[in-house]
């Protein structure tokens, strides 16, 4: 059984990794990398969460046959 909380934790891990890699690619100074990693990681996390909520709303509220 897949737990949504574990999936949330995994999303945080992936966002952090993505944020660090992108910031290392864009910036050179450690302070800029740290700030950029946080900003980019959060951006990605929020974007995925919003898309997940929309997908959930569509699947439950629109596509599920009412009975």
């Amino acid at each position, binding site marked *: *059984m*897949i737990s949504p909380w*574990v*999936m949330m934790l*995994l999303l945080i*891990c*992936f966002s*952090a*990794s*993505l944020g*660090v*890699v*992108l910031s*290392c*690619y864009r910036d*050179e100074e*450690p302070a800029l*990398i740290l700030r950029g*990693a946080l900003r980019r990681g959060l951006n990605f996390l929020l974007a995925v969460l919003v898309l997940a909520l929309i997908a959930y709303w569509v699947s439950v509220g629109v596509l599920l046959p009412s009975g």
Partner: protein
Amino acid sequence: MTEPSPAKPTRERIAAAVGWSLLIPGLAHFLADRKRDALIWFLTCQLLLVVGLTLAGNTQFDFGRPFGFGDSTLIYLQIPEGANFLTTQILARVYPSIEIGGTTPEHLPWRHLGYLLSAASGVLAMFCAAHAAGQAIVRSEILHPAAEKPRWHPGQAALATLIFPGLGHWMTGRRFKAVALAIAIFGLFVLGLILGEFGDLDRQRHPYYWVGQMLLGLPAWLISLATSGVRYTGVPPYIDAGLLFTTSAGFFNVIAALDAFHRAETDWLSKTPGPYLASQAKAEEPKSKAEESKAEASA
């Protein structure tokens, strides 16, 4: 301040070096009169490919796709072996997969090693192109006589990333980035392995993900070999996340390699006459202003 960039003739040499290297690994080095490097690259990539294909009974070609018109094949799309372009094209036409004769890869005890070696040939061919591009920069962009020569050229920095994520940055003195990239990329890869219960690295089970995983370089190759005997008794609950993480780690390593190349290139170009003199003048500027104010005070 804008970063120095290679001159147009250098950029043309880089493009040619990448093209020749992807056609035949080592050819760009040969044309640049680096015969020893050329021989090492050529033999390494070709031996890995031929031995890998032999061990896996050429079943690598079952994961590729012929592309052409009608019955005539123009190119054989084969990833990642296809980066060693010409030899892969020839071998794909000459040696068919043993599965055509009705044998399955399960009968080949060394097939996992075979897949690994042929994949390493393709990935190394890609990084051979980066190495040749780095040498093109070193050859074309002459350093200022007073400048200290960087220890590593861009191609070597990119190649080091294949040994371990972040190593290229470490070698060029970017310790913070090196550690950050190593933790982010290798950490993601290990987390993916745990989620996939150490069975994610299998070409037969997950051929598309496997290509991305191989881009992580030596750590992934060794782990792939060590976990080749892992068998699933059921579907791990987080296998999808595991595959996503390990594959993304491979692609992130390519980003790290590109960055290592670019930063080492900037280091080199900042020591060519124009940027070097500009940086010297900038370094002396505050000193001369301080001297001026001192002279004014004494007057």
